[in-house]
């Protein structure tokens, strides 16, 4: 990762976390605040970040582009920023101009475009999973019951250990697919399927534990936890549901048969 991309990551993180802070859970943003926020995002060039340098993008490698997408996942904002980034990339690749303003739906996608969008969702999930882990650790350290912090109860410690394991596994699967993207073709498709199957499951388990450990407080609309958990529940089934991706992987493994199984594991 070079200096330029780390500057991009740092400024994106700063801006998006600032905008994310302004989202008070349970209360919509005022119109003027909305317009101002999106203007700042555009000023930083984020909607065009995934376009090629020749077309006015930031010239990020695939690894860097998906790292930026992970940062977007870490900071829930009230605009479809990642979708806009993808739409502008796809539009300019097809010779069209990038769009004005945030884009909600990507419309008809080629198979390759759908895969890239699916992987983007996986990396958003990777980012948001980190946030709910950190939020949950903080909560159990701050909240006391029966005269001691929740963190001191062994049942709570073990639940958090499971949460941390799921987060680590989901992230590893998503990172694996980003690393495999360069291979292209069926190998990249399989790796994306693996990522979506694994991180989708991680989201289910992690969100359930995060809510359980936050107690009723985390179920309230005014708490920020749901900004992340409801995002995870949505993202895990977009650009191909978790079930669809998982079946794609399974069909391929079953068609290849038992003798091809282990070589497929080491080759994936």
């Amino acid at each position, binding site marked *: 990762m070079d200096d330029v991309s780390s500057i991009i990551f740092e400024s994106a993180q700063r801006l998006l976390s600032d905008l994310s802070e302004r989202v008070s859970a349970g209360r919509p943003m005022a119109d003027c605040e909305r317009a101002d926020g999106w203007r700042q995002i555009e000023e930083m060039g984020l909607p065009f970040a995934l376009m090629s340098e020749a077309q006015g993008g930031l010239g990020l490698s695939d690894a860097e582009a998906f790292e930026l997408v992970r940062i977007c996942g870490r900071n829930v904002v009230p605009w479809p920023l990642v979708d806009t980034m993808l739409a502008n990339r796809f539009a300019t690749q097809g010779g069209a101009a990038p769009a004005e303003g945030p884009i909600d739906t990507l419309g008809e996608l080629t198979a390759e475009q759908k895969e890239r969008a699916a992987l983007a969702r996986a990396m958003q999930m990777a980012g948001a999973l980190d946030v709910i882990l*950190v939020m949950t650790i903080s909560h159990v350290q701050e909240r006391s019951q029966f005269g001691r912090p929740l963190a001191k109860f062994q049942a709570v410690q073990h639940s958090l250990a499971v949460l941390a394991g799921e987060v680590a596994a989901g992230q590893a699967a998503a990172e694996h697919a980003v690393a495999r993207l360069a291979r292209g073709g069926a190998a990249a498709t399989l790796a994306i399927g693996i990522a979506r199957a694994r991180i989708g499951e991680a989201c289910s388990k992690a969100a359930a534990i995060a809510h359980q450990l936050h107690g009723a407080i985390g179920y309230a609309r005014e708490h920020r936890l749901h900004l992340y958990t409801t995002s995870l529940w949505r993202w895990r089934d977009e650009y191909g549901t978790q079930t669809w991706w998982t079946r794609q992987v399974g069909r391929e493994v079953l068609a290849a*048969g038992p003798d091809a199984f282990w070589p497929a594991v080491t080759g994936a």
Partner: protein
Amino acid sequence: MSVLAFPPPVESEAAETLRAEVRAFLADANAARTPLERAESWNGFDREFSRALGRRGWLGMTWPKEYGGHERSAFERYVVVEETLAAGAPVAAHWIADRQSGPTLLRHGTEAQKRAILPRIAAGECVFCIGMSEPDAGSDLAATRARAERQGDGSWKVNGTKLWTTYGHEADYMILFCRTSGTPADRHEGTSQLLVDMRMTSGVTVRPIHDLMGQHHFNEVHFEDAVLPPDALLGTEGQGWAQVMGELAHERSGPERFLSSIQLLIELIGALRGSESLAAQAAVGRLFAHLVTLRRMSRGVAALLEAGDDPTTHAAIVKDLGATFEQELPDIARSLVDEEPDLRSTSDFAAVLAYTMMAAPAFSLRGGTREILRGIIARQLGLR
């Protein structure tokens, strides 16, 4: 950044060339093993197979050449380990020595100990067993009561009992974790590791403990005024706890922690081959995704080890997730294939299912229980 990031695995061309060699070797050396025998995973014991690996330079791979090693990378060793496990080869005669006893000797042993033993391990000629658990010290290893008293002539007199000693009845050596001063109340203080020659030491009795299948892998090893020579001390007197924690990091870090059920997964795919069942596709797709992910994480742990970083927490996560994966397999197989599990069945699926179902409870006990691992992870998260 992430709270617990796993480093990416290191891709190595040398390792992939080696993989082809190992596969070719196993296709021949392991051909006669039945699926049920393969399902025994790392319990299969065959000295001749271990010698054959040693002759090819596939044991003690990362150790210095002067001690019989081959100075290859941790990633090359990883290839040999995962390929032999995936093939269900009988690895037990070299397993413990190559994985943890050898590295412990290399790190803490005297020059004489290293020269005497490491080349024999690398040749596949030396079986080690682990002397950690006791009747009253299981997960709570610091409660160890076995005791070695220094005698006037510098020798050690050992009394106590070790338990669940895998292949203790075949072992040439044990690395004994015991108390050399103080009392169990002193916990980590006053413990040491000693090298026990299981063939030459009198006062050592090995009794079999059969598992629920009636198989004999475990033993109880009883020491009654057993005398060890002065040079039996391994490492530093009183530093046993720190040494044993380092040894456990090796014990917990490898691909054996998620590959124990792989033969059942292979049989399941054989039974479901070409299935149009959506449930079968979803289940197999999920298992494959888990396995590829666990392997990536585990290779990341190998990268930590190679870089000299402490892999304790990462290894605990892989082992916890890995054991859960291994243990889920029998019930998933049962839900998809309508066949009675039966060890004596002529159906490979039925026999392997029966075996794996009965082996599964041990997966989250051996090498550190699930509860101990989750405690380690929680400590890293700042909760303890």
